[in-house]
């Protein structure tokens, strides 16, 4: 067998934890090799070892059959290993070209030869079909294009072996499809790929082999052609996972959220939400499907009170909340799981307990006349930690120290426990493993069954289709269609999201 990469018996420790315990990973030339495992299983760590960011305590690495010491990313680059990181390694204020050439700049008389650089970038992007604008700044381009820049970075350095760490977690369905195409193209060009993803469907779609790890230990490698979703999930979690969201038929009651002719302008003064109308009833989950950038963020922020709307009216349970402050809106019965948990959801340097009380600290019994009662707060936090199965050493542990899934659970505990009549969940499962996803979906359905209205926003069509009772498709700031998930296919949804008309979608059926 010709392995391009052999990682044998790798051990990597962090203070107090063994992230990789005797893991072996063997990747063949020209294959897409999946790496699967729960949050915190040690996948990123293993790949960072391969890329030279971490040094393993034990084990050996062979590249193309030769034993190597990868002491830093430069060595990895020289060996033809490139990595697209889970959290993008891009510099927002730099242009695409600058990001790509960084550390490897073509020069002319001592200064950067930007013209040559841009030409080189255009050439490579042409070759692999990775559309980018070489002069655009990273902060101005879409996440999908950012990802292509990441890939270009590795190719620019002549990488033959590419590591993708959860590349699809932040992409829209369209972008995911494009990425899959690109990966296939890369394989055809003779490259080899290691792909980390939590989405089993993706593994089944493009991968050849799949290595599963659990809690830092290697569980085994399977041939993707000979396996299925359930088997993979079981290997990864160590138990059976149900993928279908179990729920009964919704029994919607009175409308909770009513949005009429809403107009919101974004930072660039464009009407991001343009005359939008929407209604959600108690006891139903309404999913909003749409390609990123069609007004979802502005819609949520204007409901929540973080952004002023230009015109239109928003009511919760008949109460006008248009342009009220976030605090007033929350008190009118809104719960909100924000899409970026680190930026908007948590104060990472606060304890888990303090984070759980982030919306209610000012109320009795946690405080009175402006004085806080910490014992009461922590008592409550402990209760919720138990109830929502937040895995944390204690309620006083800093939120920073929790895994993404558990951070998300803490947020959900906070938002759901206040029994809001309206719960907005934005990308609630992004980057989480299937176990955590299962838990969160269950919670959303439970809330629905308690008679709450749930607004779900997600770029994952599967999630939208599985969880929602109704799906509203948003396009250019308007709701262009409302469909029933049961009799709408993924293709139809995709078409609607791309601006196609509902009738057409129906016709094509």
């Amino acid at each position, binding site marked *: 067998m010709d392995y391009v990469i052999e990682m044998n018996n790798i051990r990597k420790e962090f203070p107090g934890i063994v992230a990789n315990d005797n893991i072996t990973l063997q990747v063949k030339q020209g294959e897409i090799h999946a790496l699967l495992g729960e949050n915190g299983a040690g996948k990123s760590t293993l790949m960072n070892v391969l890329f030279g960011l971490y040094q393993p305590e034990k084990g050996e690495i062979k590249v193309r059959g030769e034993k190597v010491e990868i002491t830093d990313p430069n060595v990895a680059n020289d060996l033809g290993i490139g990595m697209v990181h889970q959290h993008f390694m891009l510099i927002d204020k730099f242009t695409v070209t600058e990001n790509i050439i960084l550390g490897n700049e073509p020069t002319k008389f001592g200064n950067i030869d930007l013209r040559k650089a841009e030409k080189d970038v255009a050439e490579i992007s042409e070759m692999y079909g990775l559309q980018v604008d070489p002069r655009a700044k990273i902060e101005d381009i879409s996440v999908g294009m950012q990802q292509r820049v990441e890939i270009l970075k590795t190719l620019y350095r002549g990488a033959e072996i590419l590591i993708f760490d959860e590349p699809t977690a932040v992409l829209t369905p369209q972008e995911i499809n494009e990425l899959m195409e690109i990966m296939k193209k890369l394989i055809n060009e003779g490259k080899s790929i290691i792909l980390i993803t939590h989405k089993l469907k993706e593994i089944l779609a493009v991968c050849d082999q799949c290595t599963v790890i659990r809690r830092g230990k290697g569980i085994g490698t399977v041939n993707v052609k000979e396996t299925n979703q359930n088997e993979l999930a079981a290997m990864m979690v160590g138990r059976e996972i149900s993928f279908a969201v179990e729920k009964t038929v919704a029994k919607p009651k009175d409308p909770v959220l009513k949005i009429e002719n809403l107009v919101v302008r974004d930072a660039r003064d464009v009407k991001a939400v343009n005359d939008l109308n929407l209604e959600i009833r108690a006891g139903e989950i309404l999913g909003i499907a749409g390609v990123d950038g069609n007004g979802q963020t502005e819609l949520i922020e204007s409901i*929540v*009170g*973080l952004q002023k709307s230009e015109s239109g009216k928003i009511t919760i349970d008949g109460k006008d909340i248009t342009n009220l*402050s*976030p*605090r007033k*809106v*929350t008190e009118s019965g809104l719960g*909100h799981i*924000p899409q970026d948990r680190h*930026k*908007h*959801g*948590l*104060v*990472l*340097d*606060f304890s888990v307990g*303090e984070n759980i009380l*982030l*919306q209610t*600290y*000012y109320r009795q019994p946690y*405080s009175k006349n*402006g*004085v*806080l009662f*910490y014992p009461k707060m922590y008592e409550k936090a402990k209760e919720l930690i138990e109830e929502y199965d937040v895995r944390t050493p204690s309620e006083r542990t800093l939120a920073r120290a929790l895994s993404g899934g558990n951070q998300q659970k803490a947020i959900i505990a906070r938002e759901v426990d206040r029994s809001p009549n309206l719960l907005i969940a934005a990308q609630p499962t992004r980057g989480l493993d299937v176990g955590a996803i299962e838990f969160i979906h269950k919670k959303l359905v439970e809330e629905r069954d308690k008679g709450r209205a749930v607004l779900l926003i997600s770029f994952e069509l599967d999630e939208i289709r599985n969880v929602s009772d109704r799906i509203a498709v948003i396009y250019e700031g308007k709701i262009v269609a409302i469909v029933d998930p049961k009799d709408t296919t993924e293709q139809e949804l995709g078409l609607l999201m791309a601006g196609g008309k509902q009738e057409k979608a129906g016709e094509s059926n």
Partner: protein
Amino acid sequence: MKLIKDTAVKLAIPLIAIFFGFFAGAIIMLASGNNPIAGYAALIDGVIGDAYVFGETLRMMTPLIFSGIAVAFAFRTGLLNIGVEGQLIVGWLASVVVGIVFDLPMVIHLPLAILAGAIAGGIWGFLPGILKARFQVHEVIVTIMLNYVALHVSNHVIRNYMLASGQRTDFISPTASLTSDFLAGLTDFSRMHWGFFLAIAACVIMWFILWKTTKGYELRAAGFNPNASSYAGMNVKTNIVLSMVISGAFAGIGGAMEGLGTYGFIQILSSFTNLGFDGIAVALLGGSTSIGIFLAAFLFGGLKIGAANMQAGANVAPELVEIVIALIIFFVASSYLIRLILNRLQSKKEGK
């Protein structure tokens, strides 16, 4: 078990840093031909040698505690207040003005004068706060600029409206004075005054506001993550302004301590008092905690008072003390180094 060890390490770090600082100071003394033992003996003698110097040390601590708290409070809420110096000066001026101009019974006059200091300092903190909240102007520049404005404006007011003799204003009326014959008697005529106890109270108040009130919780949250705070319904802009106002008010009271306690007047300042800048060091050395600030102020105040005796008793230039202070701050800041050493020692012990 682990918790106990963590606390022990936390306590050990400043102590080790202080030791390193003094050790380095000893080496410098040796290198410059002085006797470090005599030098430090004189230093210690100059801090706790008798009631007078001890009283002076406590007197020196008083404004340092306030300026330390002012810096720490802003720091806790994510703001860097370099303007404590200016806030302290206007607070000093305002308290003295009230102390001179009004004729009131002490129970009203003294609190009013202190309040005047707090308000003036608060206003001086409000400006950078509102500019940051409304226009995103970097608070560091504004506070630096306002220091100079405070200095010139205060000198202008003194020179044109309040000049009594030489370079200073009149004395404040006794009803606004913090001086205490009792404390002075206790400490052999030192200038220690009631303000010291106000400073202790301020430590408690800062701790209480930050850790025991909903406002403090909001302020800290906004300091760590303004985005998440506004998502959680807190008004981040108001909190920025409030934090700067409170910080400035603490600084202003620190100035009132000088005006109502130590001096009883304000003079034309030919340069900054440095009390505000020292506050940055006090706050950071004290880890922005109340107890830490108190202890750091003691160390600073003591070293400053003791420095003179070092020169008198052992002929060591007083600047040595500044070097030692700087090195202590370095070592505290480099706690990573100390942790590394401690870990090394620990694992060696375990290895055996």
